[in-house]
């Protein structure tokens, strides 16, 4: 299972309501940015809001306004997506059968914490993983301990507990295939899923 999640951010012109939905595809590391004009056109067609309702024969001022608004939203969307991708790419690695945070892991988590402090609408799910060695059962408990360590660190850094959820995938969702130490070290990790709350 490639349980990594892509987040499509959809902004409606009127409400500025952001919703996040997930589907089981790998995350976009290089998000395709929809050209602003095209985006505006789509938004204009889709929008049924009273405020920004672009009528077919609207005067040029309203059209320009709508376009500017759409561009602003698109920029915001792109910014958030970049942030989300940044957080989702920040995997924290662990030593074999250990769940203590390494110095490098702490540095990385501090950066994630900073991002989360800036974007207070973000909530995260911390996923704990293990390498392929060991039993399924024990690796669930080990992955859970890893995710918990990360949660505790972020909590101590000032991120409220109710913005974080932890889950263990045990050895079920490896990032790298194979039985080499290189693959194992890539898989002993905690990673993040990001949600946006209203």
């Amino acid at each position, binding site marked *: 299972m490639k349980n990594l999640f892509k987040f499509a951010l959809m902004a409606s012109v009127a409400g500025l309501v952001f919703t996040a939905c997930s589907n089981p595809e790998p995350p976009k590391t290089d998000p395709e940015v929809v050209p602003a004009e095209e985006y505006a056109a789509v938004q204009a067609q889709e929008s049924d809001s009273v405020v920004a309702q672009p009528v077919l024969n609207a005067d040029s001022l309203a059209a320009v306004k709508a376009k500017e608004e759409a561009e602003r939203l698109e920029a915001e969307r792109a910014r958030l997506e970049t942030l989300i991708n940044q957080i989702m790419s920040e995997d924290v690695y662990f030593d074999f059968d250990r769940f203590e945070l390494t110095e490098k892991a702490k540095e990385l988590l501090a950066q994630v914490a900073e991002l989360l402090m800036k974007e207070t609408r973000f909530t995260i799910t911390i996923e704990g993983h293990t390498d392929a060695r*060991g039993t399924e059962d024990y690796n669930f408990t080990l992955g*859970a301990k890893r995710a918990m360590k990360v949660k505790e660190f972020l909590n101590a850094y000032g991120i409220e507990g109710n913005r974080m959820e932890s889950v263990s995938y045990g050895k079920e969702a490896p990032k790298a295939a194979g039985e080499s130490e290189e693959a194992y070290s890539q898989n002993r990790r905690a990673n993040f899923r990001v949600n946006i709350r209203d």
Partner: protein
Amino acid sequence: MKNKVKAFRFSTWAVSFALGLVFLLSSWSAAAIDTIAVDVGISVFKTMPIGIVPFVEPKENIEWIEEKPHQILTRDANLSGRFEVVASEKFNLALFSRSHVKHYVTGKVSKQEGNLLRVDCYLYIAQTKDMLLGETYVVPQQELRRAMHKFFDLVIKRLWAERGVASTKLAYVSKIDGVKQVVVSDYDGYHRSQITRDSSISMMPVWMKGNKGLVYVNFKTHRPHLYFKKFGGVEQPLFPSLDQTYSPAVNPVTGELLFSSTVDGKTDLYIGNLNSGKARKFAYLKSNQTSPAWSPYATEVLFTSDRGGGPQIFVMGKDGSDMRRVTFMGRYNERASWSPEGDRIAYTSMDNGKMNIYTCALDGSDIVQLTNNAGNNEHPTWSPDGKLIAFASNRSGTYQIYIMRKDGSNVTRITNSGENTSPTWSFFYDDLD
């Protein structure tokens, strides 16, 4: 390995006796140490020779799409761990006498209307040709294998006065189109049927009491959660108010479910009822606990605790009392299961990153290593008659299911394609028919 055992032995001796006696007993300890060894796959199994003679076929040839009856019986006899097969093209008293064969099986096949086969199966005493057992099955050819399993279990009942496992099944995890799904097959790997059809992982199947269905873990909520499905029924979620539930173990007496639930990094054992959906914490311990397993009559429970850092196997009463540690050798001992005879446990141990299967007595002594030098070997599950252990191994390159005798001998692969892991053996089927 041997040195570690010695060290462990010595320490238990030291602890077991009052300090004043240690001096006196030191010579005894030394004597005891020399008798301890970890054996690898040396068979101490008592097998019974049995003759197998091809069944008589009709003049008009049968188009065999499956193995022939005597071939199926031969495989059953080999897998059972109970017999040493002496094959003969026809009844041969000289050969049978020479090979100490006291009994042999044979029979005859004929065609019947509606594409059916009539199969007459016999068990004879070799010396006298007295018939001990005669059974007739009228089946389509696709059902021949199961009919032969039935006959073979009757042979075991007649010759051993015990129940055989030829009609039992295995549940395991099969990777199908890249996704782990729960499947069920006959104990010999034939007649596989897929139980889950999800886009998310299904795993850790165990049998409900009476083989009525399976309990397993699925990830459709993006978290591990327990579900159960009766055969022919629909999937039901279990204990949805508990977070991250896994490691199911069905109480063989009451049908209750013991399992792990993880909340915020802490894993505890819970016990729940499949029908009422109610569950409560089983034991209040500081450490994390997982991989529970019941004793044959559900009076005690094996489980894994990380209280010493790595995983080790412990045992406690069904009320959570009288907890004691079972495994001391090595740093990683996990997923114990109790032998149906009640005297030993099988478990997986990791050494240098390699997993192997061991058994030991309930006080942790008499450790026997069953697998060695053949990839990873894990997830042992006892056959209900206690003679065999099924497990998963990647010795062939991919993970497949194997069956061996409980002493590690006679390893036979029963799955061939894809990737198959986490076998659990069903309860007996013969008392359900």
